[in-house]
């Protein structure tokens, strides 16, 4: 059942999928089929990143935004694997994860994310009480890089801060690990890194972006479900989507955090 759903989604996205493979998201798509050594994977990634890069690393006036196209995500988990490698995230902690939503004919909603979706969903059976599936989709989650971040507001030592180009980051040399930001973030993206013993979270790969590369997860996504770019750059994909008729939505809008992470075709069931 699950494989079938996945297959359908792949089919519907086949065009973009093949497009990506041809254009060079080779690392990502190969990951679906064969296990690769981390070294080779890393090389493919960085080479590819410079190829499709439209980011000007020196532009501090950029208005970066992240977009997730829910209808394009196939739940493969490549993004999560790439993220863990790129950022040395300890096992059991998550900078990004992929959730699976399944809605049955009774409108019951089943959500899960075993291992943060890192191992993909091909071998994860559906909940046993699900008889017939009405709808199923995957939702990648990561830091929303809020314009009004509640995490920076509460941090007692200003170890969590916003960069001039709009990234919310943590200074791990200064963080006292009080955990207040973890309470304050509405999206549950923060954790105390068990190795550094300081607050940690997704950075949208700031270190890569400042070098003109794409975030590791965007790079690894075989379907283009994850998009990143500058909203001030009319050439960027995000600009075009932002100014098109696409339905964009942010998470937990009512809380007033003003996320810069937009979802395309997001279902209202998603929190």
């Amino acid at each position: 059942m699950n494989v079938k759903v996945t297959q359908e989604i792949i089919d519907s996205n086949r065009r973009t999928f093949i497009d990506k493979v041809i254009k060079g998201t080779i690392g990502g798509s190969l990951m679906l089929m064969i296990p690769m050594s981390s070294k080779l994977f890393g090389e493919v990634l960085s080479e590819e990143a410079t190829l499709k890069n439209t980011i000007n690393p020196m532009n501090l006036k950029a208005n970066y935004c992240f977009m997730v196209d829910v209808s394009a995500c196939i739940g493969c988990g490549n993004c999560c694997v790439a993220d863990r490698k790129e950022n040395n995230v300890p096992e059991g902690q998550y900078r990004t994860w992929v959730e699976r939503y399944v809605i049955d004919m009774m409108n019951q909603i089943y959500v899960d994310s075993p291992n943060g979706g890192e191992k993909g969903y091909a071998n994860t059976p559906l909940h046993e009480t699900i008889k017939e599936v009405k709808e199923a989709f995957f939702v990648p989650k990561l830091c929303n890089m809020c314009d009004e971040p509640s995490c920076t507001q509460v941090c007692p030592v200003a170890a969590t801060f916003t960069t001039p180009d709009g990234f919310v980051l943590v200074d791990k040399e200064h963080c006292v690990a009080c955990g207040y930001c973890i309470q304050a973030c509405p999206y549950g993206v923060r954790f105390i890194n068990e190795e550094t013993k300081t607050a940690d979270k997704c950075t949208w790969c700031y270190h890569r972006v400042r070098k003109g590369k794409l975030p590791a997860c965007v790079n690894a996504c075989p379907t283009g479900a994850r998009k990143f770019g500058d909203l001030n750059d009319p050439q960027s994909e995000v600009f075009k989507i932002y100014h098109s008729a696409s339905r964009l939505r942010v998470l937990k809008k009512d809380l007033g955090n003003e996320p810069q992470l937009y979802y395309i075709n997001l279902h209202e069931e998603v929190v």
Partner: protein
Amino acid sequence: MDAGMLQYVFPNDTHAHWTLMIVIYPYITGVVAGAFIVSALAHVFKVQSLMPVAKFALIFALSWLLFVTAPLLNHLGQPQRALNMLFTPNYVGPSMMAGFGYIYMSYSILLIFEILIIYRYELVLLKERSNGLKKVIYDVLTLWTNDKSIEGRKFDHKVAFVLAAIGIPLASSLHGYVGFIFGAVKTVEWWFTPLMPIIFLLSASVSGIAGMILFYILIKKFTNKVDEIQTDTIKTLVKLLWTFFIFDFLFEMLEIAVHAYGGTQGWHHVSGLLSGPLAWSFWTMQVTTLSIIPFFILGYLSLVKVSRKVLLIVAPIVSLMLLIQVLFMRWNVVIGGQLLAKSERGFATYHPLMFEKEGILVTAIMLIAPIVTLWLLSKIFPLWESPCDKELLH
């Protein structure tokens, strides 16, 4: 639409991050603030029946104050950087937690000065009668003065009055502020209410007063000085406790009643919490056993003429119940709020272990330490009213 049968919490949000340490941190702060209020009632508002415990209240507050930071430091992942909160505070946010550092510091300084001034004359007298290490300690505590003049004492009196008067808003803000640390977190529906600082303040007063009744009677019993217990003092404290507790309990219930009546989405999560993971600790313990029962007992003690014997048995028991009530309240707030998963589809978990770093044993030690400290402090500061305290009044 149905919330779904499958519980789902975000992968970083499966357990409470703030542990037992953050449960006892507002607890300890609360006892400090509550005890101070008793001493202020005596020193500023001249409530005569509280005079016998006015000094005890200060030392009692100090013994708890010394342990306010212990659970915090034990909880921080980087305790060696704790002072960053004072040196590089986040004033842009501004961070409520950073502000606490300053209030705590100011209050500590004030309390210590208040104690030194109120005790100054008595310590000078004690210094004359002691020798060795004790004399050195008294020398330091009196700042090397031997002034016994009546003018000097009158001056002390004035300063103590002013300090106590400043101390009232400061002690109140100390604890109201702790409530703000929780009440300002908009992401946790169980915390996010303007009533939080008020509830914290009132429950602080309850725990402080209850603690004083309990230990006043216990210490006198253990030192075989039951006769010295002033019935009047206990009665006043009991009435005070009842009054504060009525307001405390009223606001605790009001908060829930308004939410429940409003029936917003947020309330659906909170009601799931109250009928689920918090059902026992909130309804059975905090509300029924430890609030409703003490409410009637205190009412009885306050309104009906009871014999001294009954008073001295029942008052400490009901005080102990309220001390535990406040502890349950802290647990239900601090842990309860974190159990509400941010996925809005279930609950996180928290099961403290006996021997972990922030576990039950360490918590117990931190709650016993102030009592041991009180005993140590009593070796230096006489806890009770001495004849010299009354001299000045006549």
